[in-house]
Structure formats: C-alpha cells, structure tokens
C-alpha cells in the first residue's frame, strides 16, 4: 500500500497540472482519493514519442490507459467512489460514456484539427516541450490520430465533408453540455456533497481549460481563474464552474455558427467580444441565451 507510485504524463500549463486530457483525469483522481503519486512529466524527453501517456509505474508493473489506472488505484484501496450508492455508480458509467461519445470529438477537434488553434496554440506548445528532432513528429502524430478518430467514428455517410462533420460534432457537444448542466443543477458536485468526484467532472475541468484557452486566444478578456483540481475544497469554485460550462456552450454555439454561416442564424461572427461581455453579467442571462438558442436550433 505504501509502495511508491510514479505517474508519467505531459506537463502543465494554462493553470492546470497537465494539458493532456487523460493525464489530467488520472492526476485529479489520484488527488481526490489521496493516493501519493509522484508526477514525472515527460516533457523534453524522448519519452514524448516512445511512451504511451499516462502511465503509472508501481514497483515492477506498468499500467496504461486512464480506465485501467483508475481500476488499479481502486484495487489498492485508493477509492474516491467508495461513498457512492450502486445506482450512482451506474449513473457515473453512463455519463462517462456520454462524455466520450459527444464531447471528446469536439475537444479533439478544437485542439488538434481546427487549423487556427492547432497552428497557434497546440502545436507550438507540444513542439516546444519535445526535444529536437521530435518536435516535428510528436504534434503531427497526435493530430493524425485525432483526425482519424473523428472521421472514423463521426464521418460516416452521408457526412462526407469535414465541415458537415464539424457542425454535427459541435451541436452534439452543445447538447451534451446542456445535459450535464441539467444534471449538475445547483449542486456542488455531481454525486454527493463531499470531495470524492467522478472522472466526468475531471473532464469538465478540462472544459474550463479549453474554454479559457479560447478566451485567451480569441477574446483576450478577463476571466475567472479555473480551479485547479488539486484543491480539496471546491464548493464556491464549482458554482463558477457551472457558469463557465454555460459560457462554454455559448461559445461552442458561436463556433457552430461560424462554421456553418447559415442565413437562418443571427450573425455572431463580427461581435464576439460584446456577446461574451454580456454573458458574464448573470448566470440567468447566460442560461437564457443557451436555452433560447437551443430551442431555436430544434
């Protein structure tokens, strides 16, 4: 139980311990369950190409993939889901599946496929963290994997062009965010009222980093600091998280419009800043926008 555990993952930036979604999931779960894990980032090493991250090393066994790592931690009695009822555990699995199916393609797309984001943000970051000559290989390998995953799972006939796939992905993601915000409501956590959190909330943490990225890159406006998942007491911050989630779906809707530029939607393209400023005014305001436009879409 007291064996030292080492976690290999990508390093952190933008206010988060790690910019890699799967590494973030494992890190957050380790913190919540109280497991003592030493983090060794693989930045600037040759492991950026050769290793599969995240990877947990314990004694002489190596575990890969977030799901396996979480199982491994649970078996070692570092269990953040202990207090949940059976029904809540079942609901957790369902929400994780929903996130993977609806939200993950949009995340992958925004980070790795969208040309502007990739060129200005993702590739420079990953390239700068990899040693020469890997900085040419690592980002493009991730991008290819992401693109092929999106095309294979979402790009089936009759959606042949990438622009149609993009539209579908973002509308699915928006719907998923709405569903999650219904589920969270005004509670502090998805399940129960104490620090054990499920991995879908960790995905939400990644959403805040993603939405902060967009804010930083596109809008350059002030934004509330995202709560790093390492903090144990997140009560008030999670309220802010809900607001950010709603703002997030607002932004995804704008990207949706930008991608499709259909005449039946209001032209948001020229005014991103004022809309974002208004959306900061009140939670009700943002909710109204989200649900209003959602109704319009249907």
């Amino acid at each position, binding site marked *: 139980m007291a064996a030292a555990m080492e976690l290999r993952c990508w390093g952190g930036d933008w206010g988060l311990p790690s910019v890699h979604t799967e590494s973030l999931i494992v890190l957050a779960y380790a913190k919540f369950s109280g497991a003592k894990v030493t983090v060794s980032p693989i930045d600037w090493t040759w492991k950026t190409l050769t290793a599969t991250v995240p990877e947990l090393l314990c004694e002489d066994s190596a575990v890969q993939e977030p799901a396996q790592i979480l199982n491994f931690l649970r078996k070692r009695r570092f269990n953040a889901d202990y207090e949940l009822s059976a029904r809540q*555990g079942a*609901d957790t699995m*369902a929400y994780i*599946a*929903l996130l993977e*199916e609806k939200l993950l393609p949009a995340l992958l797309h925004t980070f790795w496929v969208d040309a502007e984001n990739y060129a200005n943000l993702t590739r420079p970051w990953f390239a700068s963290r990899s040693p020469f000559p890997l900085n040419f290989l690592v980002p493009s390998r991730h991008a290819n994997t992401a693109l092929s995953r999106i095309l294979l799972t979402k790009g089936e*006939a*009759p959606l042949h062009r990438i622009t149609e796939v993009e539209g579908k992905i973002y509308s699915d993601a928006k719907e998923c965010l709405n569903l999650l915000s*219904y589920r969270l409501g005004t509670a502090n956590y998805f399940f129960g009222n104490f620090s054990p959190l499920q991995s879908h909330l960790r995905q939400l943490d990644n959403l805040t980093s993603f939405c902060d990225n967009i804010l930083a890159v596109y809008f350059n406006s002030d934004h509330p600091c995202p709560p790093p998942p390492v903090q144990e007491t997140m009560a008030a911050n999670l309220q802010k998280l809900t607001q950010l989630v709603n703002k997030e779906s607002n932004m995804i809707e704008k990207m949706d419009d930008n991608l499709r530029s259909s005449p039946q939607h209001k032209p948001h393209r020229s005014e991103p800043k004022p809309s974002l400023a208004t959306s900061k005014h009140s939670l009700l305001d943002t909710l109204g926008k989200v649900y209003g436009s959602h109704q319009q879409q249907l």
Partner: protein
Amino acid sequence: MSLAAEAFVSQMAAAEPWPESATLYQPLKEDQILLSDCASSLAVQAYLRMCGLPVQVVCRANAEYMSPSGKIPFIHVGNQVVSELGPIVQFTKAKGNSLSDGLDDVQRAEMKAYMELVNNMLLTAELYIQWCDDPTAAEISRPRYSSPYSWPLSNILAYQKQWEVRRKMNAIGWGGKTLEQVYEDVSQCCQALSQRLGTQPYFFNKQPTELDALVFGHLFTILTTRLTSTELAERIKSYSNLLSFCRRIEQTYFEDKSS
C-alpha cells in the same frame, strides 16, 4: 444531413400522419444478418411497437447499401427514409409520437447518458466479437455477411467490411483489447444497467422509453444468438432482473410473434 436540412425534414414529417404502409428494412434474417445489426433492428421494432406505430419488416440482401447512412435498420415512411434509432426517434417525435415526453430534464439527461453507454459498450463489444475475434469472424461473420453474393465478390465484401470495422476499433482504442477484457466490459455495463433498473418494470418506472427498447434489442439478441462461445450470454444471464425485463417486453409487445 446538415442541421438546416434536418429541421426542414422534421417540418415535412410533421405534416403527414403515420401511414399504414411504413416498412422497415433489414438484411436477410435466416442467412445474412449479423448480431449487431439484428440488435439494432430489434431495438427499432420494439420502439415502434411501444409507440403503437404499425410497421412491416422486409428483408433485403442489400439493405445496408439502401440505407442513407449505411447503417441498419432503416424505415421507409411515406416518401422519407430514416435510419438508426436516434434519427427515427426524432422523426416519430416530429409526427407527434414520443415516449419520453413525461420525463423532466434531469431524467432525459440520464436517459441519453444510458443510451450512449449501451451504444458505447454493448454495440462496440458486439462489433468486436463479430469482426475482431478471428474464430468468430472466420466461422460466422464472414460467411454470413457474404452469403447472398457469389465468389469472388463475397470474399472481397467480407474482408472489406472486416477491415473497416477493425480500423474503427483501433481508432477508438479497442484494438488492443483481449476478448476477456471485452467480456469484462460487457459485464460492467450490464451491472450498471441492472443497478439502474433495480426492481422497476421499466427504466423510468411505469412507462417504457427508447432506452428500454434499445436495451431490450441488444440483450434479447445476445441471449438468443448462437455464437462460437456462450460466454457473452452467460454473463448477461447472471443478472436476473435484466432477464425478466427482456421477458416482460417480449410478452407485452411481441406476443403475436412466434418465438
């Protein structure tokens, strides 16, 4: 379809009532259809019966190619063709028949989440077992899939389909899994479904919803299909409330069908 086109089709759909001549197309039942397609088709049939909408089931060897999205099953209603359970549910909703109207927002969110769970786990596991497990692929899937065609077309089509499915499995990370791990995932999924169902007659208490139709389609097909090993069916049989759930839906909605 783009979203604007979808909205337009919904409006057109709402204009006409459900005709008597609606048909559902699937591959040939005795020789050709595979586990995953049979499950999806049964789910749609169960859903339409729960809504009380009559539909005739027609078997065609080229059903997969006729479908607008390449997936089975698809329905032909009036002058519109809609495939897959999700779009079909939206289509019937546009015509005024919906099973999930009585749910509030949180329940609807849960229902969608569970439907994704079933699609993610059960459907993917079925595809894996059919196409990525070599004994099953060689003995059952490839011969059945290519049975309407003569050599060499049969070989080409079967291997092409297998290659496509394996590529997809690799892309979503299931390529490296062993059969044991897949069975384990199916067990976990069934455990989640069993815990959610509890002792209720349907997932959302008294009324069946599209989630019930989807779960019934998959579980019933797995239980009644002969594969190279019975491991999958055995895993499901260990959850007694899921078994009685399947039996109840079969008796309520399919009783006129000879088993």
